[in-house]
């Protein structure tokens, strides 16, 4: 009886989460839509050649992906930690709650809305450029500029997610035993020394955990966000692995090659998480899962 209740949900997961994994066999086939998956001819590893033979389009996508990842790890990852520490140090609970309500909001907006809002503020006829023009300054063209595209992406992610991402750090901060602060205080530690010797060590496990999960996404950078803005910027600056898979597969019909790139990307992600978890264990952290 309980099994019957579980059926619709399990069926949906099986059909749309698990069966598509089998669809990855087309990475080893020359997929022809009119033949279907089963009847398309096998081609061995030919589709993977693009990855290892240095195809310039693929290399460009890989390079952009890695650069954007580095920017995001350097700027996006620490931002919520800093913000959480700042919020945690506020004396007034009320001000803290008001600030939180404001900063959590962008998380719930779709990427379409976020990109549109950025255009309105930073675009050619947007808030900042209109003001600059009215005051006789030259304009500042970030939107649609290939040179500034990566910085723009990073700023958008920070705007959308920094507030929301503080939640997990604030929860970890509230778990730190207050006695540790009292002890530090008795020993004459200043606020900064308490931050360094009590607060940050208290956050270490959570930071390590999130960092490992982030590593799994090294090759995944904001697909929706980028595809929305790709038209104006051009592929050279904006093509990343996920958009490469989409553009080559769905748009240009190179199904096999795209599936191969997607498959390798997924495997690399899993491998990185496992490797990072191993390293975390070596340093005595719990990581994503325990041994």
């Amino acid at each position, binding site marked *: *009886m*309980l*099994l019957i209740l*579980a059926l619709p*949900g*399990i069926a*949906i*997961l*099986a*059909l*749309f989460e*698990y*069966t*598509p*994994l089998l*669809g*990855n066999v*087309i990475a080893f086939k020359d997929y022809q839509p009119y033949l279907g*998956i089963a009847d398309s001819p096998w081609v061995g590893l030919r589709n993977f050649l693009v990855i290892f033979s240095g195809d310039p389009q693929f290399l460009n996508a890989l390079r952009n992906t890695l650069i954007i990842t580095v920017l995001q790890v350097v700027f996006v990852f620490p931002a919520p930690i800093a*913000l959480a520490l*700042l919020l945690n140090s*506020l004396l007034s*609970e009320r001000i803290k709650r008001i600030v*939180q*309500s404001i900063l*959590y*909001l962008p998380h*719930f*907006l779709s*990427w*379409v*809305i976020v*990109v*549109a809002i950025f255009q*309105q*503020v930073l675009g050619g006829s947007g*808030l900042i450029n*209109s003001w600059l*023009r009215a005051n006789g300054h030259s304009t500042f063209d970030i939107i649609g500029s290939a040179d500034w595209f990566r910085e723009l992406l990073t700023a958008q992610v920070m705007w959308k997610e920094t*507030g929301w991402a503080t*939640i*997990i750090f604030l929860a970890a*901060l509230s778990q730190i035993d207050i006695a540790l*602060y*009292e002890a530090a*205080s*008795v020993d004459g530690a*200043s606020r900064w020394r*308490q931050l360094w010797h009590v607060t940050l060590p208290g956050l270490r496990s959570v930071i390590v955990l999130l960092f490992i999960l982030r590593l799994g996404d090294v090759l995944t950078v904001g697909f*929706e966000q980028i595809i*929305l803005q790709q038209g104006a910027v051009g592929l050279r600056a904006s093509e990343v692995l996920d958009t490469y*898979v989409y553009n080559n*597969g*769905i748009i240009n019909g190179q*199904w096999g090659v795209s*599936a191969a790139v*997607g*498959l390798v990307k*997924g495997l690399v992600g*899993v491998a990185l998480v496992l490797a990072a978890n191993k390293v975390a264990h070596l340093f005595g952290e719990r990581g994503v899962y325990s041994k």
Partner: protein
Amino acid sequence: MSRLIVAGTPPPSLFMRVVKAVVLTLCCALVIVPFVGVISTSLATQEQVIRSGGFVLIPDGVSWAAYKSVFAGGVVTRAVLVSILITVVGTAISLACTAMLAYSLSRPGSLAHTPLLMVVLMSLLFTPGIIPSYLMVKQMGLLNSYWALIIPTAVSGFNTIVMRAFFMGLPTELLESARIDGASEAQTLLRVVLPLSKAVMAVIGLFYAVGYWNAFFNAMLYINDTEKWPLQLVLRTYVVNNAVLGADQLGGSETLPPQQSIQMAILVIALVPILLVYPFLQRHFAKGVLTGAVKG
């Protein structure tokens, strides 16, 4: 409560307090100012939009012209209706499937309990690739159908786990007594469990609803027919990509308000439902996220 009231530590210096106040005010302004601008521009008069070069922060007067033309029965009106339809139907289906699945997983020891739980948990670890997902939807004949926007994302493993954690916290005596009274599992779920779980159902329901309302990529992937576009796709075409939105698309009046006001009106329409449910979301989501993190 506050961590700062620790005996013996002097309060933060005036300088530090000023720095904090400035940083936080700046962060809040970065979020609030664009919102105000979007709403103001959608309501501003034609003269002011032209005078300001496009984006208005503080409107002189209020004009509903942009909203009137957007709701005159053209592309945008239809997209709003499509989005409402998908959100309502999708949320109902998602809630039903998730509640049934979560309930059956909340009873350890039942038939195939562990393998089913693994199926749900493992689905959290990976996302199927774009190409295989597309082929799956295509193979099932769902391309260009509203169902393609609902069924593939109808069950979220994460939501299932959160709901299961809640169900497991219900007193077992109630379930026992329902069984003794001869209730079937389905009746127990419907008559005993769900009435006790209104809060969690509301939260998960909103979670799904926001997802359906905001979904954009699936529509771009699966829907070719512009007549079937949901609001987020219209937003992308006419606001992000700046396609011309004339009387042909909007229907109705001949004299259109400025393009920018219309664009901002569309943006506001996409925003309003989120803003309306936001106070509720914010209070419960934070808890939900942590429940999932702790018990998942």
